[in-house]
């Protein structure tokens, strides 16, 4: 389904702010898999998802999606295959447009935007039914500006939008990080049901150890632009949040063991 080989990306190459965000990532994800990504801040998780979504061209490597080599496709073209929810609740919706208009745009993800009406009675009814199932009381607010909703409500709608047309791949980048714990739980439950309903292939970044051990059927850990751990379904089942924290600390200790050794390691790897 998703096949990433030798992916590299350096930001601001050659300048003092040079960041080697991806240092050779290989990742193969089967159709229908739900893969959770964890890793410390700045380890390259968002960069990996952006590379898959087409936010920039990688320096090296190849990205194949649903059998097609999409490495050089522009972002808008990949959107035909990919549904996305961002960390920032403001990123995934057009704030000054109505709920119905936002959903209508999502209902045409990857389609040609011609001169047909964007909203039909039929479509509005479909939106109302689907939104009612959220239980957020939004079904009567289809014509309200989406910017008037709370962050949690917007993330829930963004999730619906990402999955309205079944995507080949669903990308979730810490999509509950900006929410309070209770709302985050709601959005996570919605995520599980949306993913399960259509058996979506999913790549989800999270900062929550709890989510990392309880969600998905595979867990990868990133560090300094590389994938350093990869737990398959069986190994993941035995994992507890404490184990993950221990893994994190291990990595951190390895980094800090001895400044001299760390320098040497850097010189070797970087």
């Amino acid at each position, binding site marked *: 389904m998703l096949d990433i080989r030798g992916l590299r990306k350096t930001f601001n190459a050659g300048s003092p702010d040079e960041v080697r965000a991806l240092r050779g990532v290989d990742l193969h994800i089967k159709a229908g898999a739900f893969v959770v990504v964890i890793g410390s801040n700045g380890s390259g998780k968002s960069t990996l998802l952006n590379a898959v*979504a087409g936010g920039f061209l990688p320096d090296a490597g190849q990205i194949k999606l649903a059998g097609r080599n999409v490495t050089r496709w*522009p*972002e*808008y*073209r990949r*959107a*035909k295959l*990919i549904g*996305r929810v*961002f960390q920032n609740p*403001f*990123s*995934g*919706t*057009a*704030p*000054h*447009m109505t709920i119905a*208009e*936002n959903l*209508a*745009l*999502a209902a*045409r*993800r*990857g*389609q*040609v*935007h*011609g*001169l*047909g*009406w*964007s*909203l039909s009675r039929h479509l509005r009814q479909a939106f109302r039914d689907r939104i009612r199932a959220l239980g957020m009381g939004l079904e009567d607010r289809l014509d309200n*500006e989406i910017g008037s909703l709370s962050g949690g409500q917007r993330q829930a709608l963004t999730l619906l*939008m990402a999955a309205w047309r079944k995507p080949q791949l669903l990308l979730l980048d810490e999509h509950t990080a900006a929410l309070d714990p209770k709302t985050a739980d709601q959005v996570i439950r919605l995520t599980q049901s949306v993913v399960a309903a259509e058996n979506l292939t999913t790549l989800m970044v999270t900062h929550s150890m709890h989510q990392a051990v309880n969600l998905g059927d595979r867990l990868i850990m990133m560090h300094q632009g590389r994938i350093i751990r990869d737990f398959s379904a069986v190994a993941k089942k035995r994992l507890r949040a404490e184990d993950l924290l221990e893994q994190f600390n291990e990595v951190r200790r390895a980094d800090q063991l001895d400044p001299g050794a760390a320098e040497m390691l850097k010189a070797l790897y970087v």
Partner: protein
Amino acid sequence: MNLLLGSFTIGLILSLLALGVYISFRIFNFPDMTADGSITLGAAVAAILLVHGVAPIGATLAGAAAGAASGAVTGLLHTRFRINGLLAGILVMTALYSLNLHVMGRSNVPLLSTATLAKEAETVGLAALGGLPTLHCFGWEVSVCDMAMLVFTFMAVVVVCIGLYLFFRTNLGTAMRATGDNQQMIRALGVNTDTMIVIGLALSNGLIALSGALLAQYQGFADVQMGIGMLVWGLASVIIGEALVRSRGLAMTIVGAVMGSILFRLMVAIALRWGLNPNDLKLITAVFVFVALILPGLTAKIHRRKEASAHA
């Protein structure tokens, strides 16, 4: 009364300019400076075609099409070559100055002896009223010619407004609005935002050039200088319109831009009647827009201060 009638007509004609500015500035958040050049381009192309005997409708539409092309060029400079939007507009505007001189062949093309939409409207008006040259309306005597032109521009503006409203509710129009609202989101939904910006600026400058083509026919000449400061004029109209309707709904903002344009033209006409020096007009328009732009921030600040001192 004739002052009122004239102001209404010019206000309506310039409301097309206001709608164009509304599309670039408000819908796309794009400070498009092309306007000053494209309004003249519309006038120049229409005027020269009229002089060469092209039918008024055809000449007017050709003027609008030329404006649309110039807007598309600004869009391409910005999206293809990643030139800053403001600069892209300035480049095209500057180039259009020479182009307009070439189109017209001189700096001013009079239209007094050629057929224009204004004269066609007059003919239709006279025929409809059985040849009466004047008309009594609420106790005033108005010339059929002025009235006919007002009715004609009104109808044209209504058609454009309805067309725009419907367009912005199609899939394409909705994607264009979303491009101005949240580019990241609409790209993630598969829309090529570059294309949207090019089409949007073409639409915007098409309307602005249409406004110029009508203005030239109404005032009876096209002049290479007529575009100077028009962008700010349109912006002033949009701002007044927003203050009038206080709504972000699509229909209301479109109507607001038209109302703002008419009201602004009326205010200017009255100020001129009271003895405002026409040379100061652009200065005052610019100051007006400046004040209107900083006012919301200023009132919010004062509000915050008051609140802070109330809490202290």
